[in-house]
């Protein structure tokens, strides 16, 4: 059995899905982030000055790019897989001789690709406001891919466990967005009072944003190695949990 064909079919289906609905998937982040750059970066940022030696506009670009990668990789998988469940065409996959790891990797790849594509769109928008010289391309790309993988996996688990459309909006609205904003997108963690610095260190998104910022502009509040350990740990844990859910048929089988 050639599983590469099944994998390719799933990935292509996912790419066509989000491209077909580009006004919902690719256009909004371009508009939203352009407003972020204009308001926070240009109008307010000019009065803030520099953070860790970087201009404010340059400082917020990596965080906004990665925040877009996080929200869109998550949103792609959670909405696509939940719709598949809702319309019952998940049955096409369950009846077919596709191993669970191929189903998981197909959907997660779709999420990673959309997350990265949105990241590229947002980066291109940012170039209208500032000129970014990439500090370390390897770290930039690897953190983007690892972060997109973590949140694609998380979106997959959310979709499996969700029983209604409300269930797929709770995590993005009440967990991801606050954690992203509190993850140092707009400020350095060093600017926080003592206790809040300690609390912020429990936010995994803080590590991802700082590592990505280091890759793009060479500025970080944390040790980059910790980011690789944390994202690697999340990927392994979430993958195993996703495969367990698929194996047991939780949320998708009787």
């Amino acid at each position, binding site marked *: 059995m050639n599983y590469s064909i099944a994998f390719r079919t799933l990935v292509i289906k996912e790419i066509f899905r989000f491209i077909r609905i580009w006004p919902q998937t690719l256009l909004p982040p371009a508009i939203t982030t352009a407003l972020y750059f204009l308001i926070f970066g240009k109008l307010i940022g000019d009065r803030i000055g520099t953070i860790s030696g970087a201009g404010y506009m340059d400082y917020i670009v990596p965080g906004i790019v990665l925040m877009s990668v996080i929200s869109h990789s998550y949103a792609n998988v959670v909405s696509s897989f939940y719709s598949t469940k809702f319309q019952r065409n998940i049955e*096409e996959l369950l009846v077919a001789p596709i191993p669970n790891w191929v189903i998981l990797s197909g959907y997660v790849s779709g999420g990673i690709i959309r997350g990265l594509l949105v990241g590229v769109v947002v980066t291109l928008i940012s170039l209208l406001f500032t000129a970014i010289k990439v500090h370390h391309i390897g770290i930039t790309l690897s953190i983007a891919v690892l972060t997109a993988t973590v949140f694609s996996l998380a979106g997959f688990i959310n979709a499996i466990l969700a029983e209604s459309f409300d269930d797929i909006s709770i995590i993005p609205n009440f967990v991801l967005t606050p954690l992203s904003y509190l993850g140092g997108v707009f400020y350095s963690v060093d600017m926080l009072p003592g206790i809040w610095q300690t609390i912020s260190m429990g936010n995994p998104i803080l590590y991802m944003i700082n590592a990505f910022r280091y890759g793009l502009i060479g500025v970080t509040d944390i040790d980059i190695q910790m980011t690789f350990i944390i994202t690697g740990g999340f990927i392994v844990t979430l993958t195993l949990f996703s495969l367990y859910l698929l194996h047991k048929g939780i949320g998708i089988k009787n």
Partner: protein
Amino acid sequence: MNALSLRNLTKIYNNGFEALKGIDLDVEAGDFFALLGPNGAGKSTAIGIISSLVNATSGSVSVFGHDLKRERAKAKSCIGLVPQEVNFNQFDTVKSILLNQAGYYGTPRKLALQRTEYCLKQMDLWDKRDTISRRLSGGMKRRVMIARALVHAPKLLILDEPTAGVDIEIRRSMWQMMQEVNQQGTTIILTTHYLEEAESLCRTIAIIDDGRIIEHSDMSSLLARLHIEHFVLDLAHPLTVAPTIDGCQIERITDKALSVAVPKEYGLNKLFSELSARNIEVISMKNKSNRLEQLFMDLIESKPAGEQ
């Protein structure tokens, strides 16, 4: 070789409902097999387990000799499923539904395109290939599901009430399609509430009730068990009173139609002789009720008390 073998298959749902109580069943390769039963009897659960949509509590499923647990991919590759309800992506085109399905079964792109064209033409849907599926009529959607189930050339096609809710014209054309598919060598398992459908299409029948197989035999020997057949006779001339013939029960439906219950051993020749002797001219006759339906009801109703 058996296309399908079920051994001691049981299913207890989380709420404690015992849907299957140890089913043993064999379906021969090439057969057109009817799996019948009243609502809630366990048909859909059995189909769900065979097609991997429901986890069995215990027991085994073997498809063309491949155990569904140990040789999962090989067993699943043999199966094509047409479910009761539309379950394809309603935003996809007809062609992409089939191409995706072929891809899930590992069919190379070039072959997938050929198979898609073949199946859509067979189901008379080729001119709808680029139509978004939600814009199709109900009958077309059902045919899309059959085409999708056939695109990877399965050896076993499972049709779970494929003609439910479709008009008689579409139903007849679907019967013809199913017969053609079976004649090409595909084993078919059909569940249906239209017993006329099962009687005219299937060669073997199993009846499931209350989670158990209560009947499993070939259609002709099952029908041979029917002792009394009921006919409606259309008469050339009106009658005011129903005639009396020893050995048959005759009722007057209208002044030019009679309902007759004829025991098998009595025979139709004798009935017509008796009617002729009474100057009653019959111009046409038809079965009053479906023969299989009669047997089905007899079997279901003859269950020992307390099994309900």
